């Protein structure tokens, strides 16, 4: 009675790995992709098809939509549609670069702290706490006051404000994983720390990180917009959805579209990122064994 033992006819539908098919079948995945594609198209193709200049006044300031200017004009009489089409590129570039660095640093610091079991953990986390206790805008303003304005400084500032949260989440998730037997097995066979992080820890904390990306990306956009709002980020006449909201707030009663249109674009961008993160986590499938 000892032939090769048959395996269980276990459900294969939701497993430990990522599947594109599952991703694309979920409503969040489809809608998220479609909305993101639209925003990307506006940002990337927009500058090529914009009907007017982004800096020269073309009509009466703050006039409502008319046949010539579908979204009306802004507080200086520039075409809102043209500025909208131009203004996505820098938003996307800044927020993507900033988000990438936030996660690079946050994941590195968080995983190192979570796995270290030595003095490294408290030291790293107290450093993180220092950044966490600063009010975000104050940290940014200090930085700008010290180093001047500019896109690079803006990105550094955003990263310093937002990486501590990621580091904390990653550390907590790593601590949870670090007590499991498969980490012990990796330690016992002498894996390098980097390889343990990449092979054993990272895949298991990915859901926690992805769930965070949506919120964090939105925070990046809002932070960048509020710095622009204060007039400390990019300089006018550059077009930027955040900057557009800021500069046109005074004429919102005359031409609501000068504020609403860039706001809608920013909202669509954050919503699509959130939807995609959600769809990704759902399509990962469960890892706990069936009961």
């Amino acid at each position: 009675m000892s032939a090769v033992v048959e395996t269980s006819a276990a459900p294969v539908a939701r497993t430990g790995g990522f599947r594109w098919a599952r991703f694309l079948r979920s409503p969040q995945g489809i809608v998220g992709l479609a909305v993101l594609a639209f925003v990307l198209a506006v940002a990337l193709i927009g500058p090529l098809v914009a009907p007017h200049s982004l800096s020269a006044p073309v009509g009466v300031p703050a006039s409502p939509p008319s046949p010539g200017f579908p979204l009306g004009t802004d507080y200086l009489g520039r075409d809102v549609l043209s500025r909208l089409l131009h203004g996505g590129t820098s938003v996307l570039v800044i927020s993507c670069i900033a988000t990438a660095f936030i996660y690079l640093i946050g994941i590195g610091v968080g995983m190192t702290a979570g796995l270290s079991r030595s003095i490294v953990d408290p030291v790293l986390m107290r450093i993180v706490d220092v950044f966490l206790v600063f009010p975000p805008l104050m940290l940014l303003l200090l930085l700008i006051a010290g180093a001047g304005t500019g896109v690079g400084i803006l990105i550094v500032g955003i990263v310093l404000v937002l990486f501590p949260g990621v580091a904390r989440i990653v550390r907590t998730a790593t601590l949870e994983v670090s007590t499991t037997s498969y980490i012990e097995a990796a330690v016992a066979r002498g894996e390098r720390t980097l390889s343990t992080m990449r092979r054993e820890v990272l895949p298991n904390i990915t859901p926690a990180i992805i769930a965070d990306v949506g919120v964090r990306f939105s925070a990046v956009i809002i932070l960048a917009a509020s710095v622009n709002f204060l007039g400390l980020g990019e300089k006018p006449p550059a077009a930027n959805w955040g900057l557009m909201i800021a500069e046109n707030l005074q004429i919102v009663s005359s031409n609501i579209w000068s504020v609403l249109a860039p706001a809608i674009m920013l909202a669509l961008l954050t919503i699509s990122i959130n939807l995609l993160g959600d769809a990704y986590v759902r399509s990962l499938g469960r890892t706990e064994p069936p009961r």
Partner: protein
Amino acid sequence: MTATSTPQSALDLSGLTVRLTRGAEIVQDIDLHLAPGQILGIVGESGSGKTTTALSLLGFTSDGTEISTGSLQLGGSQVRIDDSLRSLRGSVISYVPQDPGRALNPSLRIADAITDVATAHSRDGDPHELVVRMLEAVGLPSAEEFRRRFPHQISGGQQQRVLIAMALVGDPTVIVLDEPTTGLDVITQKRVLSLLLRLRDEQQISMVYVTHDLAVVAQIADRIAVMYAGRVVEQGSLDKVLGRPRHPYTRGLLASIPDHARPRVLDAMPGIAVGVGERPTGCAFRPRCQLSVEQCAVEVPPLDPIEEGHEVRCFRYKQTLQINPILLQPQQNVGDRGRRTVLRVEGLRAEHMVHGGDPVVAAANVSFTVHAGACVALVGESGSGKTTIARAIAGLHPIARGRVLLGDEEVPSLARRRSVEQRRRIQLVFQSAAEALNPRRTVRDSIGRPAHVLRGMGRREVRSEVSRLLDSVRLPARIADRYPRELSGGERQRVAIARALAADPEVILCDEITSALDVSVQAAVLQVLNDLRRDFGLGLLFITHNVGVVATVADEVLVLQRGLICERGSTTEVLENPRDAYTQRLLSAAPSVVEVMEHWGIAEGTTPPA
């Protein structure tokens, strides 16, 4: 329906079927009968539907399931099996849940937990007097100091007694107990079992005892119902079911139980149990049965009475005794052929650091030697330090004093200071197979990694090595692309063993690797380990709390009590002639199913007349 049962009946269940709200049956056509003052054991492996059946007796179904048919009589009167039973719960039929640690409200003192039940049943009288009486009934101290304790301040065995006391408050005629001693060590288990027997004898309380452990049921039950895939496959009085088991599944189970009193070769059933919704037509046991005929695939066999007080659900029950004997062949010592030493531990001491205090000694002065092809067992209850010893040898826990030697070479304390070669030669298999494998890595990745890291194999070599290793733990090569979640518990544990083998080790440290598995799966895993010792001369350090498993696998035994070795010797010597008082208690508390079987007429290698 009218009440037709005799007054001799405490509980009569017939035709119970519970199904998922949309679709598959979880349990089908369950008939149970229980006389006053009797204990009925419901035995089955995970997924057999035993807990579902037990909860149905209280009119309870878990979310997403419903009772579709069935009739129940309690003490001779007909009741509906649904929430209307609520009024009878506790006063006519009560429940003792699994896992006492989680079943008690951690913020209620023991006395309050018991009086709460009394209030719910609006019992008159002095609550104080009631608590004292209940605690005394279950053999717990009734002093004020004890009554005021919280659940975390008493032991697991005491928690279980408190739960039994709570079940007794309403003076029920029937108590349903769900795995009441799983999780307790054998000595505590024995105390709980004798308490239950006393309650049965003194108060004529009937009990339904649900468990996966036939050996435990053999100690206390008057009747046994064996469940498989949602049906009762064999039912009858203890002497019938254990003295002349007829269903191939019952016989397979009995052949799978490791027994310290009668060490024997285990005979694992092929295949694994089927889950809800994937049961085959006809007899659900057919795919694993050696006796199956065409009829078994077409029809579900009825639960036929084959003699007075013995029912079997099998078309071929007449043949089982001849064709399918339960092997009682004594266990042969497979080890100790080569005298080459693979692992030597000398005077090992391991400590746990306590924040701002003296370190706690987990193990002290532990010495032993593992030879190639031999198996040394480390036995002890939880907290005896066995796991820490394994971790220290594997380099996961610092060694405070003493040495670990591979062959003649002393190895550094921590894994990261050891050479690749040293790490390769010792491998550890963990207790929880569910946690031992990275859930986001395929079986191939998990098994292949040690072969790559420790033996420097390239991608292509790893591929063929993984197939070979899966074969050596008797798993089909196609599961290499699966994720751990897609495997059953026994399959996962065998993958974990294959991962240890991938390093081509000389010694494997097995830390309670079968304690979470069903007995039939455990038997298969133990078989695999025995084959590996025989075929590859692998040395094993086997850590367990189960003396039956020790008898089945080990050549030498070390008994561990609070970090110290209290007795050591060859397995036969220690099991037959224990000298230390603790070992004696441990062995006398461990239940033996074969002794009961022999008592009721099964003889070694032969079968009783039909």
